[in-house]
């Protein structure tokens, strides 16, 4: 007996009416911004070999992926992100292309979240990749486009946060740590788990690098944080700090000064993924970042093209939800006109529909057999004008 014929799998959903309109409107905004800056769209396969997502710079754990096998029994996954497929593309079909390459994408991605976590397993993600180019200019461009994206959401409150993965990488390399301990320390940084971090670092006594890592986790906030960092962080990471300060000042000068904060403790989940400036965007009312990105100079090398790159991705469903909450609905206005015909004038009515559409109206044809039903439909859908096509010609009614 069928058991699941009336359900969708956990973490997936049907989007209808305003839900759908909100998602598309976010997608359209992003597409508009990206194309206006000269990015070209790529569509990569929804199915990829598992190996694409299992390499040195970024390794997805088996639990995070939706997996299946192809006709030859090879392990295939539902695309969990778009950056690695684009890196694969650059390393293969596009190898030898003139740089920089600038791409954007707007497609679904799939993540197997823990059961009943309330998160989407399937969602639309849109973003850009700048492959090649001079580091500071490319970083600044990515940040500037990201800031434009954040502004376009017209959220009540939003923040843009920047950091640099170099702080943690360089400081933790100064401590005698096994790979396992590195991962442990990274996890505490990622979770701002102060008690665990402090007790982990305590074993190094007054080692200044250990002390600096402890401070790093707490160094987030406005401009004052950067000044504080200049005083408390060791010389080895001062160049990274100088770079971050420069980027901070540059991005603030783009007119979003009050919205920019810094978090020096930002680290990537995967040890070798981010290699420089990293950033995130938050909107009030959504408990996770809606935008995240950064520099990933080692990823392309895993696909045979040793090219530096940067980029970011936006969770469109998250932004659409925030948009819906704020607008309170009515993102899809009803058609301007409903056209009804009796049995003998169906083709005339359909022709009238097309003519009215050419005149600039949105028009719905009433697939109904009586005028009363058509009228009831217009009332229900909020359509204000009805044209009735009969032997008497076209009768116009305003509701």
């Amino acid at each position, binding site marked *: 007996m069928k058991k699941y014929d009336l359900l969708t799998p956990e973490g997936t959903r049907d989007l209808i009416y305003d839900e759908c309109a909100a998602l598309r409107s976010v997608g359209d905004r992003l597409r508009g911004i990206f194309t206006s800056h000269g990015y070209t769209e790529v569509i990569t396969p929804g199915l990829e070999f598992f190996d694409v997502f299992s390499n040195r710079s970024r390794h997805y754990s088996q639990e995070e992926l939706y997996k299946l096998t192809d006709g030859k029994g090879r392990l295939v996954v539902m695309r969990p992100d778009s950056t690695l497929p684009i890196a694969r593309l650059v390393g293969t079909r596009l190898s030898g292309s003139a740089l920089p390459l600038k791409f954007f994408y707007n497609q679904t991605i799939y993540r197997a979240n*823990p059961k009943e*976590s*309330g998160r989407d397993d399937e969602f639309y993600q849109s973003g850009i990749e700048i492959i090649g180019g001079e580091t500071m200019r490319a970083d600044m461009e990515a940040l500037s486009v990201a800031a434009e994206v954040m502004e376009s959401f017209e959220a009540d*409150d939003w*923040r843009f*946060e920047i950091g640099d993965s170099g702080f943690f990488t360089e400081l933790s390399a100064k401590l005698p740590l096994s790979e396992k301990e590195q991962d442990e320390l990274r996890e505490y940084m990622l*979770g*701002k*788990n*102060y*008690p*665990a971090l402090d007790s982990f670092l305590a074993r190094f006594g007054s080692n200044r690098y250990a002390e600096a890592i402890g401070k790093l986790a707490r160094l*987030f*906030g406005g401009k004052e944080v950067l000044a504080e960092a200049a005083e408390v962080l060791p010389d080895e990471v001062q160049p990274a700090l100088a770079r971050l300060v420069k980027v901070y000042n540059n991005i603030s000068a783009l007119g979003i000064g009050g919205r920019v*904060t810094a*978090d020096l403790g930002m680290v990537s989940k995967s040890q070798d993924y981010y290699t420089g400036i990293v950033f995130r965007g*938050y909107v*009030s*009312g*959504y*408990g*996770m*970042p809606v935008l995240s990105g950064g520099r990933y100079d080692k990823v392309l090398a895993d696909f045979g093209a040793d090219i530096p790159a940067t980029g970011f991705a936006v969770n469109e469903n998250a932004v659409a939800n925030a948009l819906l909450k704020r607008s309170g609905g009515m993102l899809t206005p009803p058609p301007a006109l409903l056209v009804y015909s009796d049995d003998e004038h169906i083709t005339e009515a359909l022709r009238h529909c097309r003519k009215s559409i050419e005149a600039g109206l949105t028009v719905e044809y009433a697939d109904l057999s009586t005028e009363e039903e058509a009228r009831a439909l217009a009332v229900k859908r909020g359509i204000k004008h009805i044209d009735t096509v009969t032997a008497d010609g076209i009768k116009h009614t305003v509701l």
Partner: protein
Amino acid sequence: MSENTTIRIALTKGRLEKDTVGLFGKMGFDTTELVEKGRRLILNIPGQNIQVVLAKAADVITYVELGACDMGVVGKDTILEHGGQYYEIADLGFGRCRFALATKEGSDFYGGVGVKTVATKYPAVTRHFFESKRMDVDIVKIEGSVELAPLLKIADGIVDIVETGTTLRENGLAVIEDVVPISARLIVNTVSMKLKKERIEELSAAMLSALEQGERGSV
């Protein structure tokens, strides 16, 4: 980031709730509503712009992770079992106990080569513990009194929360190894931490300093 931002904090119903409300009292907060709550689940601390939500332990994590609550007080046991993405910014020190492996008194859990069966309410914690020992075990999830499982001979041992060990002793069981210590933690939603930094750091610092004073007072 204005000073009048409301902070919503989820407390784990029961003992951790009581301890946290006591702590709020020490901090000079008006906890009348929290003490005389009746059956209400969302309560206010007057004059502090703090809203308190009472929830089951695992739900505290869900609410904080999804951003429905800015902060939460929850046991390390629940954190270890449920995981998730949030900041764990402070160890509040109360609600102290531990996860431990216990067997029937006198039995040799690690002896022999057979695969052992372990009963627990916390399969993730148990799996992680034995994985770190590179040991294959069968895990049986039990909802009620885990102590029964070895007595009814469906498990060789149990992994459970142990406070005083009285229940174990009365049922002829004994701790053979500590797994991990547990106490109440202060967790924060990752976005709230950034959008409401000042208020969250203030509240967390105030809680920790009240705890410290309490400790000094009791010595």
